């Protein structure tokens, strides 16, 4: 007598549990054809830095700032945070991740004092640049000039561009013209060694060769 009564109770509570479990699914169905399968994921940066992704949807806002933090959106304004894993991300985004272009690489060239001749070290670097170009599809070079902080900003912008153009012309003489090559002058904005204004610093008077 006692045993069947207990069984009956168990059955009732089990069906209540399954109803609760179905509730999110019912909500999804209510959303009907507007229902979406959107997923936004923050990845750990390859350089070890973690940035942030700010997801705004229908007045809702969520900041993703941890590696593999994700937000799923089922309709505008319905934003849910959740964690993902490297394995899940590979599964969901495999082909897009596999199609990522090779990351750009920068080389730096230095000159012997008061000459336009490269230092012996920099001559070796030129060899590395050739090797880098050879292993990339549709390779491009950007020659970026930098200055130290002696002189006005506008002056240094012009000077850095002049340095970049000089190095570009040298590279062209080395029979590198087979790739797209462009120049940029960053002036004093990106010092290798931070200094106060008007400080002469040879390590900042450099030309960067970005291969991508």
């Amino acid at each position, binding site marked *: 007598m006692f045993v069947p009564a207990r069984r009956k109770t168990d059955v009732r509570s089990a069906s209540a549990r399954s109803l609760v479990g179905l509730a999110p699914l019912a909500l999804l169905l209510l959303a009907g*054809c507007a*229902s*979406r*399968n*959107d*997923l*936004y*994921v*923050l*990845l*750990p*940066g*390859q350089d070890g*830095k973690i*940035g*942030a*992704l*700010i*997801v*705004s*949807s229908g007045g809702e806002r969520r900041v*993703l700032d941890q590696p593999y933090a994700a937000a799923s*959106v*089922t*309709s*505008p304004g319905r*934003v849910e945070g959740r964690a993902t894993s490297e394995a899940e991300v590979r599964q*969901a*985004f*495999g*082909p*897009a*991740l596999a*199609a*990522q*272009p*090779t*990351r*750009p690489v920068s080389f730096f060239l230095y000159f012997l004092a008061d000459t336009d001749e490269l230092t012996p070290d920099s001559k070796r670097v030129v060899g590395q640049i050739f090797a880098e170009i050879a292993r*990339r*599809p*549709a390779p*491009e070079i950007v020659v*970026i000039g930098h200055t130290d902080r002696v002189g006005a900003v506008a002056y240094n912008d012009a000077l850095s*561009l002049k340095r970049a153009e000089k190095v*570009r012309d040298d590279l*062209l003489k080395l029979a590198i*013209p*087979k*790739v*797209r*090559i*462009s120049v*940029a*002058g*960053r*002036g004093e*904005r990106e010092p290798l060694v931070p200094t106060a204004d008007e400080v002469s610093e040879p390590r900042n008077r450099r030309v960067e060769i*970005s291969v*991508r």
Partner: protein
Amino acid sequence: MRSGFIALILPIALTFGVAAAAAEDAGHVKVSNGAAQIERAGQRLPAAVGQAVQQGDVVITGADGSVGITFRDNSLVSVGPDSVLSIDRFVFNSTTHQGNFDSSLKQGTLAVVSGKLAKQSPEAMKVKTPAAILGVRGTEFLVRTGPAKD
């Protein structure tokens, strides 16, 4: 095989030379698999390796397609199969690193490594989907957008 291909494209690259680099292409296709096209002013171009990408272009992939693009600010953008990505705005000042990179993923999957624009200014890079707007604080991220499957 590969060197033959390079020998084939080198003269073409040469004719573009420095002058072409001065033109304001937003980026270039570096990886292309399967069905992949670029829609520009009503025309469809193959999204082949080396193809220039401009502001206003729409990148479209088929069921077996994927495309990887390196932009002028070193942003790396790739899409997976069945994707539609519109390059709404690309402006990059190579001296100040200021500008804007706005794109819209209408459907499919997208992987992004942000570049110099996002590093210079947190407002510079935005990705839109039909359901959300994403702000980018110098980072790597993934986007999937589309209707839920039944």
